[in-house]
Structures are given as C-alpha cells and as structure tokens.
C-alpha cells in the first residue's frame, strides 16, 4: 500500500509543478501585457496582482496549521504534525513576500516603506506569531512533545486572528490616518483587471499547493525514516540477544 501511495503522491506533486509553471507564465503575461495599468497609480499598481494572492495563500496556510493541529491532538497521527509544520513553513514564505511586496508597492504610492495600515498591521502581527511558531519548532525539535506544542501554538494563533483583525481595524480607524490610504484593490474598473487577478490567484494557489506538497512529503519521509530507524534498533537489539543466547 505504501509504495503506490508514494507513487500516486509524486504524480500529483509533479502535476502541480507543471500546472504552476503554465499558470505562472500566463499570469505574468497578463500582468505585464494584457491588463491596462490603473489610471492613477501607474504601473506600480501591478504589484497588486501578486500582493493579493500572496495574502490569500498565507492566510490559507495558517488556517491549515490550525486544522492540522486540531487533527493531531485528536488523532495523534504524525501525518497531521508534518502537514502543520509544512503549512507553517510555506505560509511564512508567502507571508513574508506579501509584506515585502506590500511595502515596495507602498513606497511609490504612499511615499513610505511602512504604514500602520490595518491590513499591513494585521499581516505583520500574524507574521510575528508564526515566527514564534517556527522558532519553537527549531528549538524544540528533539523533545518528543514538539508536535503537541506546535499543534497548540498553531491553534492558539489561529484563534487570535479574528480578534487581531477587529482590534487593529478599531485601532486603525482611530489612529490618525498618516496618508490617504487609497487601497488600489477595491473597485477594479476594467473586467480585464478582474480576470488577471483571478488567473494570478489560481497561479499562486497551485504554486503554493505544489510547494506545500513538496515540503509535506519531505517531512512525511523524515517521519517514516524515524519509524524505520526505531524498527532497526529493535531488530539489532533482538539480533544481539541471539548472539548472547548462542554465540554463532
């Protein structure tokens, strides 16, 4: 059963890889050639088409971390822990990129690299939470309970997200708006913009799924090798018993 599980998975993984390639090429073409630049912001607004998918993918990953955590605590299967860890890692890559892209876009439009705009702040707090998650993973990797600790942190962080969003929005509206925060995103005038965004969303979702699967299967292999090492330890202990009983 294990063999074809692996074969089937790598087929899916390669399939995702190629679709990503195709979709990404289409997306880039559409962003740079097909879609009309937004009247006011000029071509800097084109960063938007990658910024939003990055955000969606980051939030989705952190959702998976929490769900995988719940399943791990409930079922105790190492598979869920591997999934949670892989989702957190890939999620962090995309979350970091989202903040970087966001601030690069903010410089020409709002004149500063960073503003405490409610969306950026929320993402930044989320980013800090998962830095903590990954640091815990790194420093506690040898303790047997690291999987349970990771699951609990993943769940607690996800529980906090709605409150972070609410409090930051409340804080943000009262906080004197430093700059006109005209977010280019809402109210896309031209239908081509919408299609481009959708294609970019699809491209990044597949890209993320591919990366997640890549890392997830790697962690699955690592866990299965751990189990194999234990079985070997048992076998060698049994073998040494035989030697003790009747030396060869």
């Amino acid at each position, binding site marked *: 059963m294990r063999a074809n599980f692996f074969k089937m998975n790598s087929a899916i993984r390669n399939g995702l890889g190629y679709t990503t390639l195709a979709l990404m090429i289409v997306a880039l073409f559409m962003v740079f050639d097909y879609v009309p630049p937004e009247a006011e912001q000029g071509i800097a607004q084109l960063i938007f088409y990658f910024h939003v998918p990055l955000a969606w993918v980051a939030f989705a990953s952190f959702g998976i971390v929490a769900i995988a955590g719940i399943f791990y605590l409930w079922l105790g299967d190492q598979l869920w822990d591997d999934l949670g860890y892989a989702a957190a890692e890939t999620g962090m890559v995309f979350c970091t990129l989202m903040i970087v892209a966001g601030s690069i876009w903010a410089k020409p439009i709002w004149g500063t690299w960073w503003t405490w705009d409610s969306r950026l702040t929320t993402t930044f707090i989320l980013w800090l939470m998962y830095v903590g998650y990954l640091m815990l993973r790194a420093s506690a990797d040898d303790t047997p309970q690291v999987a349970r600790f990771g699951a609990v942190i993943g769940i607690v962080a996800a529980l906090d997200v709605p409150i972070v969003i609410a409090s930051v929005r409340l804080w943000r509206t009262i906080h004197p708006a430093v700059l006109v925060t005209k977010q280019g995103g809402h109210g896309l005038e031209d239908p081509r913009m919408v299609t481009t965004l959708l294609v970019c969303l699809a491209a990044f979702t597949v890209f993320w799924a591919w990366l997640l699967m890549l890392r997830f299967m790697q962690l699955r292999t690592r866990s299965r090798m751990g189990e194999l090492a*234990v079985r070997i*330890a*048992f076998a060698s*202990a049994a073998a*040494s*018993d035989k030697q003790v009983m009747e030396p060869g």
Partner: protein
Amino acid sequence: MAAPVVEIHNLAKTYGLAPVLREVQFRLMPGAGAFVVGGNGAGKSTLLRILAGLEAPSSGNAIVFGQDTRKLAARYRRRIGMMAHQSFLYPNLTACENLEFYAELYSIAEPRVSAELWLERVGLADVANARVRTFSRGMEQRLSAARAMLAEPLLLLLDEPFASLDHDGSEIVASLIRVAIERGAAVIATAHAVPEIEGVEFAVYEISHGRFASQVHKEEVRRGGRIRSLLGR
C-alpha cells in the same frame, strides 16, 4: 477469579533510537506482589511510569484496572500510588504540609489528621514541621513512601523503594508493603536486589536489555547472590 490489576500485552518503548522495553508480557492479581530486578537503564523505571499513565508505550498496551494507561480517568488514578526516584515533594513546604496537600488532592476526609498519622507511620513525626529541603535523602524517601500510600491505593508502583533507606527505614517501608498486600493491593517494585520481606511471597522477574525474562525462581536469584537480607538476621 478476580480481574487482574495489571495486564501488559507485548509492550515496547523506545527513547529516540534506544529500545528500552521490548515484548513485555505481564499480569498481576490483586493482593499479589512482584519484584522486577535488573541493572541500571534496563527499563525498570520506564515500565512503572507507563503503568502510572505518566508515559505512553511506543507499541502494545498496558491495562490497569481494566483501563488503558494512555487514558486513565481520575477515579482510576486515585487507586494508584507511586514512589519514583524523584519524591514529588515540595522542598519549601514542611513534611506535614506536603502530605496534607496530597491528601487534599486525593480528597481524603481529614487531610491534616491523615497527614500526621502517616508521618508517625514512617517515623517522621518529630520533623513534621521541618521543611523537606532540610531532609536527608533517606528521610525524603520515607516521606515519599507516606505520600504514595496515603490514599490506600490498590496498585503500588515502587521504584527502588529501599534506595538510600537505613535499616529502620527499610523495615518501615517493608511493613507498609506487607500491610498494603494484606489489604488486597497489588505491588510492583523494582530493585537491584530482591529484599527478603517476611510473610510476603513475591514473584521475581528479571529485566535485561529491555526484555522481560519470564518469572525467575527465587532460588535462582538467591544463588546469584542477589537476595539482600533486609532484616539483618
């Protein structure tokens, strides 16, 4: 035939890559005692921690009072008393305060009264109000014995109960074990050598390289010079 207090089916436990327990089969009836003899690191303490529900086995399972030790409900935990290498006592609390605290945890009717009673039983009445921090290793071991047997448990898990005990201390703990067995409790104790406890018949098991030898006859153990005459006779 009464249900066994402890049943172990093909239990195994590893720490990292080191197999600590392998193919353990074991059964213990109420009112019976068992001694597990083995060198350091043979897996004795791990076995007791698994039976106490403090650790989960890697494979196979341990059944205590008919329950899997991975999920022991409070009412079953109440029937287990344990002495480990660590005493589970608070150094900054006095001996009496420690016992009173555990008596409350096991919701014993008169915590103070039972604490004082047990202090007398283990011969620590005169240091009742001294902090455990000031105790010698032997005194702490006696207090740990009192803590373990305070709630009249039906299963006693004793990890080298006689370690660092002087002659009187060993005699006290031995008599407490005898009383527990007469009360119908099951006792599993580990040791480097099997102490001779008068009036109590112990099954002796040997554990080496994580494997549980089946029951070993006392004479065999005696021949191996592993019977430490406890009572000095």
